[in-house]
Protein backbone atom coordinates (compact mmCIF):
# COMPACT_ATOMS: atom_id res chain seq x y z
CA UNK A 1 0.00 0.00 0.00
CA UNK A 2 3.05 2.21 0.33
CA UNK A 3 3.14 2.12 -3.38
CA UNK A 4 -0.29 3.56 -3.76
CA UNK A 5 0.33 6.39 -1.34
CA UNK A 6 3.78 7.21 -2.64
CA UNK A 7 2.95 7.11 -6.33
CA UNK A 8 -0.53 8.47 -6.03
CA UNK A 9 0.25 11.87 -7.57
CA UNK A 10 1.90 10.24 -10.56
CA UNK A 11 -1.00 7.84 -11.07
CA UNK A 12 -3.51 10.62 -10.75
CA UNK A 13 -1.72 12.67 -13.36
CA UNK A 14 -1.58 9.64 -15.66
CA UNK A 15 -5.29 9.08 -15.14
CA UNK A 16 -5.83 12.67 -16.21
CA UNK A 17 -3.91 12.01 -19.42
CA UNK A 18 -5.95 8.85 -20.06
CA UNK A 19 -9.15 10.82 -19.58
CA UNK A 20 -7.87 13.57 -21.83
CA UNK A 21 -6.99 11.09 -24.60
CA UNK A 22 -10.29 9.26 -24.30
CA UNK A 23 -12.64 12.19 -23.99
CA UNK A 24 -11.02 14.44 -26.57
CA UNK A 25 -10.72 11.73 -29.20
CA UNK A 26 -14.29 10.62 -28.50
CA UNK A 27 -15.63 14.14 -29.00
CA UNK A 28 -13.52 14.72 -32.10
CA UNK A 29 -14.37 11.22 -33.31
CA UNK A 30 -18.07 12.09 -33.06
CA UNK A 31 -17.47 15.37 -34.88
CA UNK A 32 -15.80 13.48 -37.72
CA UNK A 33 -18.02 10.41 -37.54
CA UNK A 34 -21.25 12.34 -38.05
CA UNK A 35 -20.36 13.88 -41.42
CA UNK A 36 -18.94 10.49 -42.42
CA UNK A 37 -22.27 8.86 -41.60
CA UNK A 38 -24.18 11.52 -43.55
CA UNK A 39 -21.82 11.08 -46.48
CA UNK A 40 -22.40 7.34 -46.34
CA UNK A 41 -26.19 7.74 -46.67
CA UNK A 42 -26.10 10.67 -49.09
CA UNK A 43 -27.28 10.53 -52.66
CA UNK A 44 -23.83 11.44 -53.99
CA UNK A 45 -21.83 8.45 -55.09
CA UNK A 46 -18.49 10.20 -54.57
CA UNK A 47 -19.29 11.09 -50.96
CA UNK A 48 -20.51 7.57 -50.30
CA UNK A 49 -17.34 6.14 -51.80
CA UNK A 50 -15.10 8.32 -49.65
CA UNK A 51 -16.98 7.36 -46.49
CA UNK A 52 -16.91 3.66 -47.32
CA UNK A 53 -13.18 3.74 -48.07
CA UNK A 54 -12.48 5.64 -44.86
CA UNK A 55 -14.33 3.17 -42.66
CA UNK A 56 -12.76 0.26 -44.46
CA UNK A 57 -9.20 1.53 -43.87
CA UNK A 58 -9.48 2.75 -40.30
CA UNK A 59 -11.60 -0.10 -39.07
CA UNK A 60 -9.66 -2.70 -41.00
CA UNK A 61 -6.17 -1.96 -39.64
CA UNK A 62 -4.85 -2.27 -36.07
CA UNK A 63 -5.05 0.84 -33.94
CA UNK A 64 -1.48 0.20 -32.79
CA UNK A 65 -0.24 0.55 -36.35
CA UNK A 66 -2.25 3.74 -36.85
CA UNK A 67 -0.77 5.22 -33.68
CA UNK A 68 2.78 4.34 -34.67
CA UNK A 69 2.25 5.54 -38.22
CA UNK A 70 1.21 8.96 -36.99
CA UNK A 71 3.99 9.31 -34.43
CA UNK A 72 6.91 7.52 -36.07
CA UNK A 73 5.83 7.55 -39.71
CA UNK A 74 4.70 11.10 -40.35
CA UNK A 75 8.06 12.72 -39.40
CA UNK A 76 9.45 11.00 -42.50
CA UNK A 77 7.12 13.27 -44.46
CA UNK A 78 8.28 16.23 -42.42
CA UNK A 79 5.27 16.23 -40.12
CA UNK A 80 6.31 16.14 -36.48
CA UNK A 81 3.60 15.91 -33.85
CA UNK A 82 4.01 15.82 -30.07
CA UNK A 83 3.17 12.47 -28.43
CA UNK A 84 -0.18 13.45 -26.88
CA UNK A 85 -1.61 15.22 -29.94
CA UNK A 86 -0.41 12.44 -32.21
CA UNK A 87 -2.10 9.84 -30.01
CA UNK A 88 -5.28 11.93 -30.00
CA UNK A 89 -5.14 12.23 -33.77
CA UNK A 90 -4.78 8.49 -34.29
CA UNK A 91 -7.46 7.64 -31.71
CA UNK A 92 -9.82 10.19 -33.29
CA UNK A 93 -9.40 8.84 -36.81
CA UNK A 94 -9.90 5.31 -35.54
CA UNK A 95 -12.92 6.13 -33.36
CA UNK A 96 -14.58 8.11 -36.15
CA UNK A 97 -14.70 5.02 -38.35
CA UNK A 98 -16.63 3.05 -35.74
CA UNK A 99 -18.77 5.96 -34.54
CA UNK A 100 -19.86 6.79 -38.09
CA UNK A 101 -21.21 3.26 -38.37
CA UNK A 102 -23.07 3.69 -35.05
CA UNK A 103 -24.58 6.95 -36.27
CA UNK A 104 -25.52 5.41 -39.58
CA UNK A 105 -27.26 2.50 -37.85
CA UNK A 106 -29.21 5.03 -35.78
CA UNK A 107 -30.25 7.06 -38.79
CA UNK A 108 -31.39 4.13 -40.90
CA UNK A 109 -33.37 2.80 -37.95
CA UNK A 110 -35.60 5.90 -38.10
CA UNK A 111 -38.82 4.96 -39.87
CA UNK A 112 -39.14 6.21 -43.43
CA UNK A 113 -42.52 7.68 -42.50
CA UNK A 114 -40.74 10.12 -40.18
CA UNK A 115 -38.70 11.51 -43.05
CA UNK A 116 -41.79 11.66 -45.23
CA UNK A 117 -43.90 13.44 -42.64
CA UNK A 118 -41.22 16.11 -42.30
CA UNK A 119 -40.59 16.30 -46.05
CA UNK A 120 -44.28 16.65 -46.76
CA UNK A 121 -44.17 19.84 -44.65
CA UNK A 122 -41.35 21.15 -46.78
CA UNK A 123 -38.89 20.99 -43.88
CA UNK A 124 -35.34 21.77 -45.04
CA UNK A 125 -32.92 18.81 -44.94
CA UNK A 126 -30.69 20.18 -42.19
CA UNK A 127 -33.59 20.91 -39.90
CA UNK A 128 -35.17 17.57 -40.68
CA UNK A 129 -31.96 15.84 -39.59
CA UNK A 130 -31.55 17.93 -36.48
CA UNK A 131 -35.11 18.09 -35.20
CA UNK A 132 -36.70 14.88 -36.41
CA UNK A 133 -34.09 12.28 -37.29
CA UNK A 134 -31.28 12.97 -34.82
CA UNK A 135 -33.34 12.70 -31.61
CA UNK A 136 -34.70 9.34 -32.72
CA UNK A 137 -31.42 8.08 -34.16
CA UNK A 138 -29.50 8.91 -30.98
CA UNK A 139 -31.84 6.76 -28.96
CA UNK A 140 -31.03 3.76 -31.12
CA UNK A 141 -27.34 4.55 -31.45
CA UNK A 142 -26.67 5.38 -27.82
CA UNK A 143 -25.90 1.86 -26.52
CA UNK A 144 -23.33 1.06 -29.24
CA UNK A 145 -21.88 4.57 -28.94
CA UNK A 146 -21.50 4.05 -25.18
CA UNK A 147 -19.71 0.76 -25.81
CA UNK A 148 -17.46 2.48 -28.30
CA UNK A 149 -16.60 5.20 -25.77
CA UNK A 150 -15.65 2.56 -23.20
CA UNK A 151 -13.59 0.63 -25.73
CA UNK A 152 -11.84 3.85 -26.68
CA UNK A 153 -10.98 4.55 -23.06
CA UNK A 154 -9.18 1.22 -22.91
CA UNK A 155 -7.61 1.73 -26.33
CA UNK A 156 -5.86 4.85 -25.02
CA UNK A 157 -3.44 2.47 -23.30
CA UNK A 158 -1.84 1.92 -26.70
CA UNK A 159 -0.64 5.52 -26.59
CA UNK A 160 1.97 4.24 -24.16
CA UNK A 161 4.01 2.96 -27.11
CA UNK A 162 4.54 6.52 -28.34
CA UNK A 163 5.91 7.71 -24.99
CA UNK A 164 2.65 9.15 -23.65
CA UNK A 165 2.64 8.65 -19.89
CA UNK A 166 -0.94 7.64 -19.45
CA UNK A 167 -2.20 5.07 -16.94
CA UNK A 168 -0.67 1.98 -18.51
CA UNK A 169 2.75 3.48 -19.04
CA UNK A 170 2.74 5.05 -15.60
CA UNK A 171 1.93 1.68 -14.03
CA UNK A 172 4.68 0.05 -16.00
CA UNK A 173 7.24 2.61 -14.91
CA UNK A 174 6.18 2.46 -11.28
CA UNK A 175 6.34 -1.32 -11.51
CA UNK A 176 9.79 -1.37 -13.01
CA UNK A 177 11.23 1.06 -10.44
CA UNK A 178 9.65 -0.68 -7.44
CA UNK A 179 9.29 -4.25 -8.72
CA UNK A 180 5.69 -4.10 -7.49
CA UNK A 181 4.16 -4.87 -10.88
CA UNK A 182 1.19 -6.65 -9.38
CA UNK A 183 0.01 -3.66 -7.37
CA UNK A 184 0.89 -1.11 -10.04
CA UNK A 185 -1.09 -2.81 -12.80
CA UNK A 186 -3.94 -3.70 -10.47
CA UNK A 187 -4.32 -0.07 -9.45
CA UNK A 188 -4.17 1.07 -13.09
CA UNK A 189 -6.78 -1.50 -14.01
CA UNK A 190 -8.97 -0.31 -11.18
CA UNK A 191 -8.65 3.26 -12.46
CA UNK A 192 -9.83 2.22 -15.95
CA UNK A 193 -12.70 0.34 -14.41
CA UNK A 194 -13.73 3.36 -12.35
CA UNK A 195 -13.73 5.65 -15.39
CA UNK A 196 -15.74 3.18 -17.42
CA UNK A 197 -18.22 2.54 -14.65
CA UNK A 198 -18.90 6.26 -14.53
CA UNK A 199 -19.38 6.25 -18.30
CA UNK A 200 -21.86 3.38 -18.05
CA UNK A 201 -23.83 5.17 -15.37
CA UNK A 202 -23.92 8.31 -17.50
CA UNK A 203 -25.06 6.28 -20.50
CA UNK A 204 -27.84 4.67 -18.48
CA UNK A 205 -29.10 8.04 -17.28
CA UNK A 206 -29.04 9.41 -20.81
CA UNK A 207 -30.90 6.37 -22.13
CA UNK A 208 -33.63 6.80 -19.56
CA UNK A 209 -33.92 10.47 -20.41
CA UNK A 210 -34.20 9.82 -24.12
CA UNK A 211 -36.65 7.00 -23.51
CA UNK A 212 -39.11 9.09 -21.55
CA UNK A 213 -41.33 9.83 -24.52
CA UNK A 214 -41.65 6.13 -25.30
CA UNK A 215 -42.68 4.86 -21.89
Amino acid at each position, binding site marked *: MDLVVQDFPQLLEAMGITLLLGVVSFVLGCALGLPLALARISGYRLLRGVAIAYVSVFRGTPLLIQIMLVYYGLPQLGVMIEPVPSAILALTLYAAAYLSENFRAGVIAVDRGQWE*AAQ*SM*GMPYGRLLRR*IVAPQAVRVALPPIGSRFIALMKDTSLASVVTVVELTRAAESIGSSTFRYMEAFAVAGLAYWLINTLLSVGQGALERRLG*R*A*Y*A
Partner: protein
Amino acid sequence: MRDDDKGGGADRIAIRALHKRFGALEVLKGVDLTVARGEVVVVMGPSGSGKTTLIRCMNLLEEPDAGTVTVCGRTVECGGAMRRRERARQVRAIRHRTAMVFQQFNLFPHLTALGNVAEGPLSVRGMPREAARVLGLGLLDRVGLADKADEYPARLSGGQKQRVAIARALAMEPEVVLFDEPTSALDPELHAEVLAVMRELARDGMTMVVVTHEVQFAREAADRVVFMDGGVVLESGPPQEFLNHPVHPRAQAFLRLVAHDTPAPPPGGEPPARPARWEHAR
Protein backbone atom coordinates in the same frame (compact mmCIF):
# COMPACT_ATOMS: atom_id res chain seq x y z
CA MET B 1 -66.35 28.62 -50.18
CA ARG B 2 -67.06 26.30 -53.06
CA ASP B 3 -67.19 27.19 -56.70
CA ASP B 4 -65.86 30.68 -56.35
CA ASP B 5 -62.70 31.87 -58.03
CA LYS B 6 -63.64 30.60 -61.46
CA GLY B 7 -60.59 32.22 -63.00
CA GLY B 8 -57.61 30.33 -64.37
CA GLY B 9 -56.40 29.70 -60.83
CA ALA B 10 -59.50 27.81 -59.70
CA ASP B 11 -57.83 24.41 -59.84
CA ARG B 12 -55.84 23.57 -56.77
CA ILE B 13 -54.47 20.42 -58.32
CA ALA B 14 -54.02 19.54 -61.97
CA ILE B 15 -52.38 16.22 -62.81
CA ARG B 16 -51.63 15.59 -66.49
CA ALA B 17 -50.63 12.33 -68.15
CA LEU B 18 -48.91 11.08 -65.05
CA HIS B 19 -46.79 7.97 -65.36
CA LYS B 20 -44.96 6.12 -62.63
CA ARG B 21 -43.24 2.76 -62.60
CA PHE B 22 -41.43 0.82 -59.93
CA GLY B 23 -38.89 -1.23 -61.84
CA ALA B 24 -40.81 -3.35 -64.29
CA LEU B 25 -44.17 -2.58 -62.68
CA GLU B 26 -46.04 0.31 -64.25
CA VAL B 27 -48.21 1.65 -61.45
CA LEU B 28 -49.62 4.85 -62.97
CA LYS B 29 -50.37 4.62 -66.66
CA GLY B 30 -51.33 8.13 -67.61
CA VAL B 31 -53.52 9.67 -64.92
CA ASP B 32 -55.33 12.97 -65.44
CA LEU B 33 -57.07 14.58 -62.52
CA THR B 34 -58.05 18.07 -61.48
CA VAL B 35 -59.22 19.18 -58.09
CA ALA B 36 -60.93 22.54 -57.83
CA ARG B 37 -60.55 24.92 -54.96
CA GLY B 38 -62.67 23.79 -52.02
CA GLU B 39 -63.43 20.47 -53.67
CA VAL B 40 -63.37 17.21 -51.73
CA VAL B 41 -62.32 14.32 -53.92
CA VAL B 42 -62.45 10.75 -52.67
CA VAL B 43 -60.23 8.26 -54.45
CA MET B 44 -61.28 4.62 -54.35
CA GLY B 45 -60.00 1.50 -56.01
CA PRO B 46 -58.78 -2.01 -55.35
CA SER B 47 -55.52 -2.70 -53.54
CA GLY B 48 -52.53 -2.08 -55.77
CA SER B 49 -54.45 0.15 -58.18
CA GLY B 50 -52.04 3.04 -57.54
CA LYS B 51 -54.04 5.27 -55.17
CA THR B 52 -51.23 5.79 -52.70
CA THR B 53 -48.73 6.32 -55.47
CA LEU B 54 -50.99 8.93 -57.08
CA ILE B 55 -51.56 10.92 -53.91
CA ARG B 56 -47.84 10.77 -53.08
CA CYS B 57 -47.08 12.18 -56.51
CA MET B 58 -49.22 15.19 -55.65
CA ASN B 59 -46.64 16.44 -53.13
CA LEU B 60 -43.75 14.77 -54.93
CA LEU B 61 -42.95 12.30 -52.16
CA GLU B 62 -42.94 9.97 -55.14
CA GLU B 63 -41.07 11.07 -58.22
CA PRO B 64 -43.24 10.54 -61.31
CA ASP B 65 -41.51 9.34 -64.50
CA ALA B 66 -43.53 11.51 -66.86
CA GLY B 67 -46.37 14.01 -66.87
CA THR B 68 -46.95 17.23 -65.00
CA VAL B 69 -48.09 17.97 -61.49
CA THR B 70 -49.52 21.43 -60.84
CA VAL B 71 -50.49 22.26 -57.29
CA CYS B 72 -51.58 25.72 -56.19
CA GLY B 73 -50.14 27.20 -59.34
CA ARG B 74 -46.72 25.56 -59.01
CA THR B 75 -45.82 23.12 -61.74
CA VAL B 76 -43.35 20.26 -61.76
CA GLU B 77 -42.64 18.70 -65.12
CA CYS B 78 -41.53 15.15 -64.62
CA GLY B 79 -39.06 13.12 -66.59
CA GLY B 80 -36.01 15.36 -66.49
CA ALA B 81 -37.45 18.29 -68.43
CA MET B 82 -36.77 20.64 -65.53
CA ARG B 83 -33.56 22.01 -64.11
CA ARG B 84 -32.75 20.53 -60.74
CA ARG B 85 -32.72 23.80 -58.84
CA GLU B 86 -35.94 25.04 -60.38
CA ARG B 87 -37.63 21.73 -59.70
CA ALA B 88 -36.54 21.76 -56.05
CA ARG B 89 -37.97 25.26 -55.72
CA GLN B 90 -41.34 24.20 -57.10
CA VAL B 91 -41.43 21.08 -54.94
CA ARG B 92 -40.73 23.14 -51.84
CA ALA B 93 -43.48 25.61 -52.79
CA ILE B 94 -45.95 22.76 -53.33
CA ARG B 95 -45.09 21.15 -50.01
CA HIS B 96 -45.53 24.45 -48.20
CA ARG B 97 -49.03 24.74 -49.61
CA THR B 98 -50.12 21.15 -49.03
CA ALA B 99 -50.19 18.84 -46.05
CA MET B 100 -50.45 15.08 -45.86
CA VAL B 101 -52.14 12.76 -43.40
CA PHE B 102 -50.70 9.27 -43.49
CA GLN B 103 -52.26 5.86 -42.97
CA GLN B 104 -49.71 5.10 -40.22
CA PHE B 105 -49.98 8.63 -38.70
CA ASN B 106 -46.20 9.15 -38.73
CA LEU B 107 -46.35 11.31 -35.63
CA PHE B 108 -42.95 12.34 -34.28
CA PRO B 109 -42.59 10.02 -31.26
CA HIS B 110 -40.06 12.19 -29.44
CA LEU B 111 -42.41 15.19 -29.37
CA THR B 112 -45.61 15.70 -27.40
CA ALA B 113 -48.92 16.15 -29.19
CA LEU B 114 -48.42 19.90 -29.00
CA GLY B 115 -44.80 19.54 -30.08
CA ASN B 116 -45.95 17.61 -33.13
CA VAL B 117 -48.46 20.26 -34.11
CA ALA B 118 -46.09 23.16 -33.43
CA GLU B 119 -43.10 21.63 -35.23
CA GLY B 120 -44.07 22.80 -38.72
CA PRO B 121 -44.93 26.36 -37.68
CA LEU B 122 -41.67 26.53 -35.70
CA SER B 123 -39.18 25.01 -38.05
CA VAL B 124 -40.78 25.47 -41.47
CA ARG B 125 -42.82 28.64 -41.15
CA GLY B 126 -40.40 30.31 -38.75
CA MET B 127 -43.13 31.23 -36.31
CA PRO B 128 -42.14 32.49 -32.85
CA ARG B 129 -42.36 29.84 -30.13
CA GLU B 130 -45.28 31.38 -28.27
CA ALA B 131 -47.33 31.94 -31.43
CA ALA B 132 -46.71 28.32 -32.50
CA ARG B 133 -47.84 27.15 -29.08
CA VAL B 134 -51.06 29.15 -29.24
CA LEU B 135 -51.74 27.95 -32.78
CA GLY B 136 -51.01 24.36 -31.75
CA LEU B 137 -53.29 24.47 -28.72
CA GLY B 138 -56.06 25.98 -30.82
CA LEU B 139 -55.78 23.20 -33.39
CA LEU B 140 -55.65 20.46 -30.77
CA ASP B 141 -58.82 21.96 -29.35
CA ARG B 142 -60.37 21.91 -32.80
CA VAL B 143 -59.75 18.15 -33.11
CA GLY B 144 -61.01 17.65 -29.55
CA LEU B 145 -57.64 16.93 -27.94
CA ALA B 146 -56.86 20.08 -25.98
CA ASP B 147 -56.36 17.96 -22.86
CA LYS B 148 -53.74 15.75 -24.56
CA ALA B 149 -51.35 18.56 -25.49
CA ASP B 150 -48.54 17.31 -23.26
CA GLU B 151 -49.02 13.62 -23.98
CA TYR B 152 -46.47 11.75 -26.10
CA PRO B 153 -47.83 9.78 -29.09
CA ALA B 154 -47.02 6.48 -27.37
CA ARG B 155 -49.72 7.29 -24.84
CA LEU B 156 -52.45 8.12 -27.38
CA SER B 157 -55.00 5.81 -28.98
CA GLY B 158 -54.90 5.34 -32.74
CA GLY B 159 -57.84 7.65 -33.27
CA GLN B 160 -56.25 10.32 -31.11
CA LYS B 161 -52.96 9.94 -32.97
CA GLN B 162 -54.65 10.46 -36.30
CA ARG B 163 -56.48 13.53 -34.99
CA VAL B 164 -53.17 14.96 -33.78
CA ALA B 165 -51.79 14.22 -37.25
CA ILE B 166 -54.67 16.15 -38.79
CA ALA B 167 -54.01 19.07 -36.42
CA ARG B 168 -50.33 18.88 -37.40
CA ALA B 169 -51.33 19.06 -41.07
CA LEU B 170 -53.59 22.06 -40.45
CA ALA B 171 -50.82 23.86 -38.57
CA MET B 172 -49.11 24.37 -41.91
CA GLU B 173 -52.20 26.36 -42.96
CA PRO B 174 -52.28 24.36 -46.18
CA GLU B 175 -54.43 25.08 -49.19
CA VAL B 176 -54.83 21.36 -49.84
CA VAL B 177 -54.82 18.40 -47.45
CA LEU B 178 -53.99 14.95 -48.81
CA PHE B 179 -55.25 11.92 -46.87
CA ASP B 180 -54.01 8.41 -47.59
CA GLU B 181 -56.43 5.93 -46.00
CA PRO B 182 -56.57 7.87 -42.74
CA THR B 183 -58.75 5.29 -41.00
CA SER B 184 -57.37 2.02 -42.39
CA ALA B 185 -54.92 1.46 -39.54
CA LEU B 186 -57.60 2.04 -36.91
CA ASP B 187 -59.96 -0.31 -35.16
CA PRO B 188 -63.46 0.15 -36.59
CA GLU B 189 -64.80 1.84 -33.46
CA LEU B 190 -62.20 4.59 -33.84
CA HIS B 191 -63.08 5.50 -37.45
CA ALA B 192 -65.93 7.81 -36.48
CA GLU B 193 -63.90 10.31 -34.44
CA VAL B 194 -61.40 10.78 -37.28
CA LEU B 195 -64.07 10.99 -39.97
CA ALA B 196 -65.97 13.56 -37.93
CA VAL B 197 -62.93 15.84 -37.90
CA MET B 198 -62.50 15.34 -41.63
CA ARG B 199 -66.15 16.07 -42.35
CA GLU B 200 -65.89 19.28 -40.43
CA LEU B 201 -62.81 20.24 -42.39
CA ALA B 202 -64.67 19.57 -45.62
CA ARG B 203 -67.58 21.71 -44.44
CA ASP B 204 -65.17 24.55 -43.72
CA GLY B 205 -64.23 24.56 -47.38
CA MET B 206 -60.83 22.85 -47.27
CA THR B 207 -59.64 21.37 -50.53
CA MET B 208 -59.14 17.67 -49.83
CA VAL B 209 -58.03 14.56 -51.66
CA VAL B 210 -58.94 11.50 -49.65
CA VAL B 211 -57.96 7.96 -50.49
CA THR B 212 -60.48 5.91 -48.54
CA HIS B 213 -62.97 3.08 -48.75
CA GLU B 214 -65.31 4.80 -46.31
CA VAL B 215 -68.47 4.81 -48.43
CA GLN B 216 -70.43 6.76 -45.87
CA PHE B 217 -67.82 9.50 -45.72
CA ALA B 218 -67.78 9.72 -49.51
CA ARG B 219 -71.56 10.06 -49.57
CA GLU B 220 -71.66 12.81 -47.00
CA ALA B 221 -68.52 14.80 -47.56
CA ALA B 222 -67.24 14.25 -51.08
CA ASP B 223 -68.01 16.39 -54.08
CA ARG B 224 -66.64 13.73 -56.37
CA VAL B 225 -65.49 10.14 -56.23
CA VAL B 226 -62.69 8.97 -58.47
CA PHE B 227 -62.34 5.26 -59.12
CA MET B 228 -58.91 3.91 -60.01
CA ASP B 229 -57.96 0.50 -61.24
CA GLY B 230 -54.80 -0.79 -62.86
CA GLY B 231 -53.08 2.58 -62.78
CA VAL B 232 -55.76 4.60 -64.55
CA VAL B 233 -58.85 6.55 -63.53
CA LEU B 234 -61.74 4.41 -64.71
CA GLU B 235 -64.63 6.47 -63.51
CA SER B 236 -65.32 9.76 -61.80
CA GLY B 237 -68.51 11.39 -60.67
CA PRO B 238 -70.63 12.79 -57.86
CA PRO B 239 -70.75 10.38 -54.92
CA GLN B 240 -74.45 9.49 -55.09
CA GLU B 241 -74.19 8.80 -58.78
CA PHE B 242 -70.98 6.80 -58.58
CA LEU B 243 -71.91 4.88 -55.45
CA ASN B 244 -75.45 4.08 -56.57
CA HIS B 245 -74.93 3.60 -60.28
CA PRO B 246 -71.32 2.77 -61.05
CA VAL B 247 -70.91 2.45 -64.77
CA HIS B 248 -67.76 0.43 -65.15
CA PRO B 249 -68.07 -3.28 -64.37
CA ARG B 250 -64.90 -3.19 -62.29
CA ALA B 251 -66.27 -0.30 -60.24
CA GLN B 252 -69.43 -2.33 -59.70
CA ALA B 253 -67.45 -5.34 -58.57
CA PHE B 254 -65.32 -3.20 -56.27
CA LEU B 255 -68.31 -1.52 -54.64
CA ARG B 256 -69.91 -4.89 -53.97
CA LEU B 257 -66.78 -5.79 -51.99
CA VAL B 258 -66.51 -2.63 -49.91
CA ALA B 259 -70.25 -2.69 -49.27
CA HIS B 260 -69.69 -6.03 -47.54
CA ASP B 261 -67.06 -4.40 -45.35
CA THR B 262 -69.30 -1.62 -44.16
CA PRO B 263 -72.20 -2.27 -41.78
CA ALA B 264 -75.31 -3.20 -43.72
CA PRO B 265 -78.03 -0.54 -43.78
CA PRO B 266 -80.87 -1.16 -41.32
CA PRO B 267 -83.31 -3.63 -42.87
CA GLY B 268 -86.32 -1.35 -42.84
CA GLY B 269 -84.47 1.87 -43.60
CA GLU B 270 -82.85 3.37 -46.68
CA PRO B 271 -84.01 1.84 -49.95
CA PRO B 272 -82.24 -1.48 -50.31
CA ALA B 273 -82.23 -0.39 -53.91
CA ARG B 274 -78.45 -0.27 -53.82
CA PRO B 275 -77.75 -3.98 -53.90
CA ALA B 276 -80.62 -4.44 -56.33
CA ARG B 277 -79.18 -1.90 -58.75
CA TRP B 278 -75.78 -3.49 -58.48
CA GLU B 279 -77.29 -6.84 -59.27
CA HIS B 280 -78.96 -5.22 -62.19
CA ALA B 281 -75.81 -3.56 -63.38
CA ARG B 282 -73.99 -6.87 -63.32
